[in-house]
């Protein structure tokens, strides 16, 4: 079934694959078709972010004028400068940065030693625990947000410590999403390190902690970078938890701040919303642009074992 639906475009691909193709011209045409379809798909992929930029560069009056929405007649950076100087937006940005950086730190502190123990120090139940970690990764946040909400409310009633509607509640919530995945891919990376390396270190009298810090962390650095990028992206992009757990304007992170505060305003200021969305998308996009290979390594490592 899949194959028949694919036929027009993948025939081009499959023919281009055939290095031993009898006629060179055929291959050339196949390549042209491949590029044509790639252009169409890339256009589809890049259209929304491009439209964010187009709208972000417009004034409100130009947006409401019934002119071609795909073109900017009088480009202006007013939306961007207004946002960047607005204290509300700065608070969102600051909250997002603090939360994302701390979540990355917490995640790595928990998952790197745990992955080391699970992959190198076989102990009773380590296999089950590794599988359990992977299963936890499959539990979606949409299943847990309601019981967690009630748990934190009960926690406040018992201890008087308010967690709901405080930005730091996210430091408890996000690791449930990042730690299982990061542990899982770090187990894979650690497993690929030759056993002789840590055996030699232990024989030379290194402690387990030294073996981890001085040998495993440096050798598995690409994996650690991939895991860090993943944790940052997840923490930056999360929407459900901050939407459910934080409501005051000064406690919001960027994803929720833009989607709720700017939209709730009396007038839908789409130029500003799009500028804000683009600024919010910038940090992950910049990281991705510079560290694409690590990003993709982390992405593909999730479905493989080692």
């Amino acid at each position, binding site marked *: 079934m899949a*194959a028949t*639906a*694919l036929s027009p*475009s*993948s*025939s*081009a*691909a*499959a023919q281009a*694959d*055939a*290095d031993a193709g009898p006629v060179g011209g055929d291959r050339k045409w196949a*390549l042209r078709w491949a590029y044509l379809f*790639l252009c169409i798909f*890339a256009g589809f*992929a*890049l259209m*929304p*972010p491009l439209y*964010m930029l187009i709208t972000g560069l417009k004034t409100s009056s130009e947006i409401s004028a019934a002119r071609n929405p*795909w073109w900017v007649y009088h480009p202006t950076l007013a939306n961007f400068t207004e946002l960047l100087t607005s204290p509300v937006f700065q608070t969102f940005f600051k909250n997002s940065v603090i939360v994302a950086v701390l979540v990355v730190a917490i995640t790595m*502190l*928990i998952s790197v030693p*745990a992955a080391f123990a699970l992959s190198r*120090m076989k*102990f*009773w139940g380590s296999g089950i625990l590794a599988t359990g970690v992977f*299963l936890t990764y*499959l*539990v*979606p946040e949409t*299943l*847990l947000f*309601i*019981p967690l*909400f*009630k*748990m934190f409310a009960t926690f406040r009633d018992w201890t008087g410590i308010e967690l709901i509607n405080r930005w730091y509640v996210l430091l408890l919530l996000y*690791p*449930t999403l990042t*730690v299982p995945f990061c542990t899982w891919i770090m187990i894979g990376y650690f497993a690929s390190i030759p056993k002789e390396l840590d055996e030699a270190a232990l024989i030379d009298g290194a402690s387990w*902690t030294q073996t981890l810090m001085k040998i495993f962390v440096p050798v598995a650095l690409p994996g650690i970078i991939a895991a860090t990028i993943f944790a940052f*992206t997840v923490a*930056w992009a999360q*929407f*459900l938890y901050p*939407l459910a757990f934080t409501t005051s304007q000064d406690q919001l992170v960027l*994803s*929720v701040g833009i*989607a709720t505060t700017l939209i709730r305003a009396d007038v839908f200021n789409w130029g500003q*919303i*799009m500028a804000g*969305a683009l600024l*919010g*998308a910038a940090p*992950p996009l910049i990281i991705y642009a510079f560290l694409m290979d690590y990003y993709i390594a982390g992405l593909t490592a*999730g*479905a493989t*074992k*080692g």
Partner: protein
Amino acid sequence: MAQIAVRDRSAFAESRPRSTVREFFQQKSTVAFLFTLPLILLIAALVVYPAFYSIYLAMLSKRMDRFVGLANFTFLFTRETFWMVVKQSCIFAITAVIFKALIGFIVAHLVHAIPSEGQRKWRGMLLVPWVIPPALSTLAWLWLFDPSYSAFNYIIEGLGGGPIPWTGDALWARFSVILVNIWIGAPFFMIMYLAALKSVPAELYEVAAIDGASWFQKLWYITLPMMRNIIAITTLFSLIVTFANFDIVRILTAGGPIDQTHMFATWAFKLGIEGGDIPLGASISLFMVPILTIAAIFILRDINKRGERM
């Protein structure tokens, strides 16, 4: 058992001089236990406990002062909206996953077909939808679908068509949320399939070409069998994520028009958090468990198989 081991040794250590205490902390089992303790605590307190707690919550009355057994579930069964949500979640997840897989498969082949120097650039562009936070990119789609300023309708009207109620009409709204989900998720499939394609040995295709195999035979007898496992894992994984999706529907339609695009997650949020009926919200989200469990079992099976083979 790890705990028992620790307790025994600590009792033992206390009766000895200090050097033994240090020795105890260098014991393999102690170190392993200490290394995994934060992970175990996190998973136990913030994943396993809430998962079971939500079963308990689902059996309470709205004000959470009375145990009502399965009354919340039977109440849901009588609601028409509930069945609509079940239907919509299934349609949404299945349609979106099929199209994501198909598009990902096609695009992976296209990228694989071009000279390898150019692949990086194209791959980089095609993965952008996956990198942008979904909540923010959905805002762009919301604006593209805007009832009065839709940029799509501008093009359609320019071509002579009538304006499309992208989020106003139930059918179109369902189409729109699925479209956005495909836009965000297809690049993930593309990357996974591309990695799988690259791991297929080129000799297989060379041998097939010598034997005069058509492109379809190569696809059917070489590519698909070699990619079978990664296709299965990616599809099942995406099924879970798509089925439990929240961001897209929440921002694009907020469940409307008249609750017709609600998924389990958005409806649970609406009733549980916004409506203040936590037990009912908990029981709604529990309905996601069966399908998630089935998908998880298959993923685990495939991953173990993969691990054995490698």
